[in-house]
């Protein structure tokens, strides 16, 4: 059992948890994730470690309520427990002093981009962060990103805050403005990562994405998370989750991530009917 030490909403449906897991806190590096199982009947889902604290023995995860398991997790509060947390898993991000590094986070992807941005800064890079959201209310980790960045930009799809448009438009604007970029990290929805890869490809800018395929064990024993990179099958849980964006087959990833759509929809519907608490929680969040 892993105790939740603190829990708070960062935006509608996006909640941040600090969880007691000393062993994981001690070893974890930027780019790694945990596999979480809430309860006896629960499934195993991967969640990126956004931060950790060796002294308190805690790790931080940021969860967007998208399906049954994440919604259920987001109902938990400080003092509650999570049955299983395994990690840290995956290869740590490859960090070096590239020169000028851009860290792009789309939606809850900002939670994953953040620790790598911190590590890039510590390695001596000039760090530019682009933090994209649907609208002003969905922007997360703005202050944290600002702290680690030499330049920090927020973009919103509807223009309600910051730059009006997609993260890719901001990235293109930087390139067009003459900024020499040496490294781009992009984390977010598949269409966003794919679009970023297409922006940087013609310039030959090294671009890395953190992939989010379906996972079961997260230790390399099943291959459920396999992705096609440079024409070869790779297991995202042990070989990744970060890969060269210019080599990733995004269509295959998108297709594979739809494999359980029917199950997921049904599970969520059941859950929502069963759970009237949801509304109260959302009311609290918007306060």
């Amino acid at each position, binding site marked *: 059992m892993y105790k939740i030490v603190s829990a708070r909403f960062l935006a509608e449906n996006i909640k941040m948890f600090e969880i007691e897991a000393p062993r994981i806190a001690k070893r974890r590096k930027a780019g790694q994730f945990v596999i979480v199982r809430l309860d006896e009947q629960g499934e195993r889902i991967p969640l990126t470690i956004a931060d950790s604290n060796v002294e308190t023995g805690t790790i931080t995860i940021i969860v967007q309520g998208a399906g049954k398991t994440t919604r259920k997790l987001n109902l938990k509060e400080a003092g509650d427990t999570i049955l299983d947390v395994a990690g840290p898993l995956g290869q740590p991000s490859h960090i070096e002093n590239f020169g000028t590094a851009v860290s792009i986070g789309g939606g809850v992807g900002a939670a994953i981009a953040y620790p790598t941005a911190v590590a890039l800064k510590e390695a001596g890079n000039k760090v530019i962060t682009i933090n994209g959201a649907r609208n002003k209310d969905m922007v997360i980790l703005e202050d944290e990103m600002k702290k680690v960045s030499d330049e920090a930009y927020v973009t919103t799809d509807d223009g309600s805050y910051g730059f009006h448009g997609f993260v890719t438009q901001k990235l293109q604007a930087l390139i067009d403005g003459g900024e020499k970029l040496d490294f781009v990290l992009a984390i977010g929805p598949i269409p966003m990562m794919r679009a970023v890869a297409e922006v940087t490809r013609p310039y030959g800018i090294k671009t890395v994405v953190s992939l989010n395929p379906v996972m079961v064990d997260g230790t390399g024993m099943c291959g*459920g998370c396999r992705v096609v990179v440079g024409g070869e099958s790779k297991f995202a849980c042990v070989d990744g989750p970060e890969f060269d964006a210019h080599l990733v087959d995004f269509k295959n990833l998108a297709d*594979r991530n739809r*494999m359980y759509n029917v199950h997921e929809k049904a599970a969520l519907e059941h859950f929502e009917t069963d759970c009237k608490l949801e509304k109260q929680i959302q009311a609290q969040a918007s306060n």
Partner: protein
Amino acid sequence: MSEGKMGKLSAKERMKIHRHEMPEQEAKARCGNFDEVNFGYTPELAMEEALRCIQCKDPVCIEACPVNVKIDEFIGLVAEGKFLDAAQKIKEDNALPAICGRVCPQEDQCEQVCVIGKKSEPVAIGNLERFVADYERNSGNMKLPEVKPATGKKVAVVGSGPAGLTCANDLAQWGHEVTVFEALHELGGVLMYGIPEFRLPKQIVREEIDNLKKLGVKFQTNVVVGRSVTIDELMEEDGFDAVFIGVGAGLPWFMGIPGENLNGVYSANEFLTRVNLMKAYDSNYDSPVFDCKGKNVAVIGGGNTAMDAVRTARRLGAEKVYIIYRRSEKEMPARIEEIKHAKEEGVEFIMLNSPVEFVGDENGWLKGVKCLKMELGEPDESGRRRPVPVKDSEYVIDIDMVVISIGNGSNPLIKQTTPEIGTSKKGTIVVNQETMQTSKKGVYAGGDIVTGGATVILAMGAGRTAAKAIHEELMNVTVNAE
């Protein structure tokens, strides 16, 4: 059956008794559930079967058992109706008899050399072991083996599969403080995620593991050695005096043919993990699995895992279930009993066929398997006749879900983080066969991580050999071979 009958039967009379097969669920009914197929012996059946053992002077069956269970002695006790004593006798050598009695390939081990088997069918040693273990468990009278005084030595066991559990059991009995580290949330390794409920009920695995807890063995789940902690840290920081690595062969092989990443293509590990460990067949559990109802399913391979996968798909409601194997049935590595059960359950065997491509639709879903027909050529290095493709014999079978069950390799996690431990080209850990010691002092390994995919009982044998060597190293003593 009176106690004295054992001695009164002549060898001839014994030979007249036929081997008692286990009663089992009828094929049609069992396709609709995940309940155990075999019901096991009744006490009467067990005692009669035990009478078939002639108590040879030189019980070759014992040598053929990788953990050397005192087969003649325990069967003698069964014949006398002393079932609990028989259980104790088995447990002197085997910590997991209810599991071994179910999943060991006895026909290749103890039963293969049974003297009775030369003239008639061999004594059903496996069935008897299973009966005895179940009898003890159901009696509510489980006895623990004797534990020697604490030695003050600490041993870490990595992996809670059959190798690790056996090693932990033996070390605990010698008085060492043992902690088992497991990456998954449940203990048991392949016993939990791999072998289906209908062959090995998970409750039995849990109860056998509970016995180890009562012996004082500690278990920590969700610890991925190589990621959560390294072997060096276990030894240097956590103060373990020795480490046993029993992490198995858990890295699934794919075929490297086009279409392998289509939706509906699984490794056997993933398919079985979803169904067995995550209980995807039960709607009360959250993990999904491909909806097999009314669909055509093919499993590629001819081993026990392939049989498990195909029979699982049948139970999930698949309409047509196929085994596609590149050699002929004779070369299949699966147990004869499993092949028989699969056939009874309506599995169709497509022999001498090798998939060359998985065919999909525009949305990335599997629609068919393109196969190439094969014929058998000369024997290869394994002694089995090599399949050779038949020219222009390609055709497509309509398939909605495919499970690839062509074997497993070694997970590279430990190799990556503890490079001092020598590995082969295949990634298996190299050990001294006598002691199971690796190239790193104090670190031992056994089971599938050393041999590549093999059997539960061989892994247990390796765990036992390693435990003895670890004990000798830690105590600076020599334990006489039993």
